[in-house]
């Protein structure tokens, strides 16, 4: 860029107009940003259309869950843990229940384990469908959210029948699950799975093969594999970089090691790869759900636990990990033998890619791509804020 110069003696009419500090300006995206899964702000330093520096700002959704859990009984916390990640609540319940089971040595009936896997996978499908809608929204394709989010409602209807709640299920209890499957539920699940499988083909036509998406998402927000490992990416974002790590395979919990499924990976690690990993995961999840329905044994679904108001968990600690739809989701729980947890640390799946990786990927990107990069990482701000 040449500086602004007059004919008069070659003097600047606007001295310093082209100094870096005057060419840059600050731009804020958020916190009222349409389409993110929660409030989250980006402070961008921009020159022209290019982002020079990005800083995330979180905390708009902070409720102090870790503190609240310390002030409540073990049984009460079951109702609040699911609120930590809104679009994909079940890994929280799973983690919380499994942490207690691991400390106290509680057995879980096999049927309950299968039902947990069923719920987790349905939740993953619902969460990914939600993400597709959001990602399509960032490129302005508003037909896709209308389709995928109302298809997600079919999964939510299943949840409502099984657990009584559409979004929050409060279903996993230490020692099993709260209710057995209702009459004829398996058939209805199969029907919904068939429906979603059919719809995926329509999504391909509308969205995944859409010329505009290919134009905008390929080559955007590239996170090379070595950087992904160094910066601590997990879950689909790591698999999109071609690194096949999945907690369900590598640190198996419940009955995942008995089930037959693949870990989809991609090579290019751009926004499109991350989207496609999620699209393929839906196919795998449908496959897992079908296997679970087929192999589910009969039996009880809950090993009865003592009086919940006086329920003590022996002293000890446990670190449990779950593969959520966003990545590695972990709880570190410490009990001192009382009626309340002594400490629960929630390691949200988005704490790495929602904060530092996002900041790195946004640097040098264009404003138009900022929200798409953010969405392709599928960061969930409530997990960061807790």
């Amino acid at each position, binding site marked *: 860029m040449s500086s602004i110069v007059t004919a008069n003696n070659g003097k600047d009419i606007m001295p310093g107009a082209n100094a870096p500090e005057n060419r840059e300006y600050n731009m804020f995206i958020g916190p009222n940003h349409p389409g993110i899964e929660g409030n989250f702000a980006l402070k961008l330093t921009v020159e022209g259309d290019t982002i020079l520096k990005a800083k995330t700002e979180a905390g708009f959704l902070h409720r*102090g869950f870790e*503190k609240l859990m310390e002030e409540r009984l073990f049984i009460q916390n079951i109702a609040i843990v699911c609120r930590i990640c809104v679009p994909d609540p079940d890994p929280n319940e799973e983690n919380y229940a499994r942490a207690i089971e691991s400390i106290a040595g509680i057995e879980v009936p096999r049927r309950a384990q299968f039902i947990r896997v069923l719920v987790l996978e349905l939740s993953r499908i619902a969460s990914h469908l939600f993400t597709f809608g959001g990602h399509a929204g960032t490129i302005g394709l508003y037909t896709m959210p209308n389709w995928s989010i109302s298809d997600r409602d079919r999964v939510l209807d299943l949840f409502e029948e099984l657990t009584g709640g559409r979004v929050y299920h409060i279903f996993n209890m230490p020692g099993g699950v709260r209710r057995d499957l209702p009459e004829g539920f398996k058939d209805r699940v199969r029907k919904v799975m068939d429906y979603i499988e059919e719809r995926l083909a329509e999504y391909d036509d509308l969205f995944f093969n859409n010329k505009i998406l290919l134009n905008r998402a390929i080559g955007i927000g590239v996170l090379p594999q070595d950087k992904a490992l160094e910066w601590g990416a997990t879950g689909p974002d790591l698999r999109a970089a071609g690194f096949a790590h999945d907690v369900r395979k590598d640190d198996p919990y419940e009955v995942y090691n008995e089930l037959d499924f693949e870990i989809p990976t*991609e090579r290019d690690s751009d926004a499109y790869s991350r989207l496609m990993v999620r699209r393929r995961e839906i196919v795998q999840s449908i496959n897992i759900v079908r296997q679970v329905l087929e192999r589910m044994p009969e039996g009880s679904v809950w090993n009865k636990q003592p009086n919940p108001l006086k329920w003590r968990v022996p002293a000890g600690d446990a*670190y449990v990990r779950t593969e959520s739809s966003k990545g590695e989701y972990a709880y570190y729980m410490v009990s001192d033998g009382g009626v309340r947890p002594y400490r629960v640390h929630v390691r949200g799946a988005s704490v790495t890619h929602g904060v530092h990786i996002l900041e790195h990927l946004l640097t040098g990107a264009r404003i138009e791509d900022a929200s798409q990069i953010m969405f392709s990482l599928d960061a969930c701000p409530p997990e960061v804020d807790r």
Partner: protein
Amino acid sequence: MSELIRTPSAGRPLAALGAARGADAIMAAIVAETGSAEFHAKGARRVEGQVKADALHSFAAAMKSRVGFEHLSAISCVDWIAQGEFELVYHFWSYRDNCLVSAHVRIDRATASMATITDLWMPASFFERDIHEFFGVVFQGNTDLERYILTDWKGPPPMRKDFVSRDFAHEHFQYKDYEPTWDEMIEGGYRGSRDKTGGAE
């Protein structure tokens, strides 16, 4: 059904990392590389042990480069107020062994100072900032410890055990005219005003 534009590609084969080791082999490797002998297996895929506070940085560096634990899963902090200590727990995950090593570090609660490991793992900077914000532990060498979540916070670090959330809420927020009392009836009860040793400042 239309074909997808891009076909799936094979990921990095896990075999390239080398054969997975069992818990015993890992503990042997830790002893050989770091000299910390106080590690024991705790269930499948879990190893835990104690590390001295001043040895943590070199321990972590050895874990990352030589023992092969390349993923820092989390850093947790526990406030043991009765003993006057903070316990920092570093969770390392190995993609090669599929095993988690938890290193427990005890530091003094009054000084609350610890060496940073952000130079080894970038994700540590989020966890350290978080612990600084919620426990008040200062990580020496971490340049980015400014407020992140509690930007306008004026009280003491909220996750310390002597901070009682309910008392703070009563002081700062306006409630409706009614309030639940069930929690005074159960065992342990409401730990707030009755046992107000530290309380909200």
